[in-house]
């Protein structure tokens, strides 16, 4: 419990209205999309980097933990205040500071909602590609801290690839800038990349300079159904081998198709065993050519059906199949563990086969879909907590799934991060020396361990 003296000091820094200690507020800032819950001692809503700096200085002086939080939509518990302390919400810092159409960059505060930023730059004919599924509500600060991905990453890269510079409040309370506004820059260590994906353990991001691209003229969407998982996987490597990088290559396995069909009856052919949602973007003429070429390339691979959208409305209808996946999963079992392993894209069928075997071994339904273009598969282990022993079995299954991905030269997380959820599995992927190196960085920047403690590394 924080002493009331400290609460008073926090109120002095951010104002009375921006410190909440009612149990109702603590509950509402104690969860995220993992469905874990830990109540903080207070919730603080600072309005400026200077206020954040003052809070972190106070935290060092008084030794209380600070947990930075954006929209609280993370999948690994990165923002959860395990062990108590204060939740520091960055959503009041929500201005787009500038969009520079000559240098194709933008500077924003961390609380800006991802989609709002995308719409703002698109109005000027510019493009910010990273598109995590939560983009309508996630914040850019959270996206950077978790290094968020999304379907478009296969062509454009992840959040990190668009971050040119940051302003960060270090755990000590000092404010620094990293990187800058120039595409080139090699002076000193690349702290910007270190902070991207650091999950709020190394600093609180207060400004972000993003790189932007020109907005592609058009896009073309195709929904392709294959008679085997191998056909779909082969399609991915054939398309890319054919020198076309689609904007998205979204994949759904048979278990996923069954879920969606059962609930929404979309008319996917019965012979379908896997679906690829393919989208290309660019100049109008170019994408027509690319779409035609893709159809040629995939035809011999057991293609059962290929629907090509003629306009935006038809494109949206095709995307609907993908969007309905999550809502239909609940029919399988009430609780899902949503893992996001990555393997080299050619290894997707291998890992799916291994996962199917794991599902059978533990008798737990596992549904796979996701970003086949970059080998990032969302593995949904569906359980019913009411069934005794199922939860424990699920954890064993998840460990095996991670091992399977690692055996294929993959990683256990492509975009969700580690946080609390994957913490126990970290030694599967990182060696003791790797972990010690990372912890040395953490220790150097946060000697008192006040910023988002107890995350990422095994405790």
């Amino acid at each position, binding site marked *: 419990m924080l002493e009331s003296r400290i609460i008073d000091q926090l109120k002095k820094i951010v104002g009375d209205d921006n410190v*909440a200690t*009612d*149990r*109702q*507020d603590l*509950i*509402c*800032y104690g*969860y*995220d*999309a993992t*469905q874990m*819950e830990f109540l903080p001692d207070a919730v603080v*809503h600072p309005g400026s980097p200077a206020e954040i700096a003052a809070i972190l200085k106070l935290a060092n002086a008084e030794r209380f933990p600070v947990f930075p939080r954006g*929209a*609280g*939509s993370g999948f690994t518990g990165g923002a959860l205040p395990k062990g108590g302390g204060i939740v520091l919400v960055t*959503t*009041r810092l929500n201005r787009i500071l500038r969009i520079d159409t000559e240098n194709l960059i933008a500077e924003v505060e961390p609380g800006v*909602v991802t*989609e709002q930023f995308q719409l703002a730059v698109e109005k000027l004919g510019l493009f910010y590609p990273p598109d995590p599924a*939560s983009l*309508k*509500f*996630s914040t850019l600060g959270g996206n950077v801290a978790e290094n968020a991905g999304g379907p478009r990453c296969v062509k454009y890269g992840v959040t990190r690839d668009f971050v040119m510079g940051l302003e960060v409040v270090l755990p000590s309370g000092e404010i620094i800038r990293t990187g800058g506004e120039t595409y080139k820059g090699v002076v000193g260590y690349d702290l910007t990349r270190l902070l991207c994906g650091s999950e709020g353990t190394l600093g609180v991001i207060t400004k972000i300079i993003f790189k932007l691209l020109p907005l592609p003229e058009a896009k073309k969407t195709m929904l392709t159904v294959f008679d085997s998982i191998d056909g779909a996987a082969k399609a991915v490597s054939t398309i890319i081998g054919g020198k076309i990088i689609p904007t998205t290559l979204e994949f759904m396995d048979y278990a996923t198709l069954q879920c969606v069909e059962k609930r929404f009856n979309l008319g996917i052919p019965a012979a379908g065993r896997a679906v690829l949602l393919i989208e290309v973007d660019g100049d109008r003429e170019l994408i027509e050519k690319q779409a035609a070429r893709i159809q040629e390339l995939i035809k011999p691979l057991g293609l059962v059906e290929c629907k090509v959208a003629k306009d935006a409305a038809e494109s949206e209808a095709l995307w609907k199949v993908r969007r309905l996946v*999550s*809502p239909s999963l*609940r029919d399988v079992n*009430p609780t899902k563990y949503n893992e996001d392993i990555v393997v080299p894209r050619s290894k997707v069928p291998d890992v799916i086969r291994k996962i199917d075997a794991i599902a059978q071994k533990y008798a737990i339904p596992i549904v796979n879909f996701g970003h086949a273009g970059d080998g990032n598969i969302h593995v949904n282990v569906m359980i019913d907590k009411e069934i005794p022993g199922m939860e424990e079995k699920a954890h064993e299954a998840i460990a095996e799934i991670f091992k399977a991905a690692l055996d294929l030269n993959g990683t256990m997380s492509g975009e969700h991060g580690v946080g609390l959820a994957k913490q126990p599995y970290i030694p599967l992927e990182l060696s003791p020396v790797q972990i010690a190196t990372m912890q040395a960085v953490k220790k150097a920047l946060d000697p008192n361990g006040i910023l988002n403690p107890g995350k990422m590394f095994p405790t």
Partner: protein
Amino acid sequence: MDPLKRVENELKKCVKCGACRAHCPAFTAFQREPAVARGKVALAQHLLEGDIELDDATYAAMSKCLLCGSCVEKCPNDVPTDEIVMVARESLAQKRGLTTFHKAVGQVLKNRRLMSFGAFAATILGPLFFRKVPQTSGLRLRFPLPFVGNKRHIPQIARKPFLTRHPEVIAGEPGKPRIVFFVGCMTNFVYTEVGEAALALFRHLGCTVIIPKEQQCCGLPGMSGGDLETVRQLAEQNLAALEKYEADYVMTACATCGGALHKFYPALIGKRHPELAERIRAIADKTVDAAQLLQQLGLHPEETGAGDAVRITYHDPCHLRTRAITRQPRELLKGSPGVELVEMEGSDKCCGLGGTFNVYHYETSLQINEGKSIAIDKTGAEAVVTGCPGCMMQLSDGLKQRGSRTRVMHTLEILARSLRS
């Protein structure tokens, strides 16, 4: 039994993904998590577990919901937060008692004799009227309400309520559909012209229109306050009134009333009173919005006669939008001779009225409304048109406070402007 027990399984469906943050008008205004759907669901879960008090903070959080259903529409897990909030309010009301305002609402709503023009005006619109009454006035003592401001523009109350103007059955052509008109309080007492327009349009189509005299308030103000016993009584009276004559449809010209009959009666009353469930379901299945029905019955707007040229914009009432009634009114309006429909930015955004939300959180309600007023005026439209008398009152208030001269009209008024009933 704690009423929240009834929605225990619904509460479990929420995975706290945060999707509601993008759609909740209350969250957009308050910017704090207890105001958003998943926050309220979390609080309801803790209420049920008994580890939070029914104190002011819980009360405040649960009051910050407009019952617009936007979060439900967009929820990947179909969590019915609107229903959960009403049940949470019921739970709060049972344990703490109804608020002064809701007590007064309940008293009037369930007493048929009181549900007269005067009572409606004084009580339902009372808090709104009294915003105009000086702080020092003795009249205020009769309404010791904490939420009486003095800025609000109140619509004029009709001299003669709609229900007293017409016979119960207005016969149409044989073989044509028979329609029961569920009028609703706002149309009955304030926007009677909407009722007249509905009558004119359905008579133009040759329909028999039945306007049962015994019909009551739909009860949404009661649901909104957690007074579900009052709502049950009203629902029973309404069922009896609506079943009195054989009919093909139950038609509403008020999005909120339609939402109540179509969605909230089955969800809130049908579930807890199984003896009424079947009748409630039958009425719910017959309930259609006026514009939806006009299109379904093949109204050709061009045949209703040309009106003056008018540039309009359309506002989607939440309780039509969440029932997927967005296309029908637009198509009818566009077909009406002389009408130019210009879309505003964010036509699907809530107007901010939210039943009694507007009484408890007037300033926030106006704040939500402000963006709407700006978007309306940006279109250069002479009139903003919508399908809900509740929205009409709120839009009108917002526009007047900004000094805008844009008129507020109902879809049916535009369609019927050259018809005489």
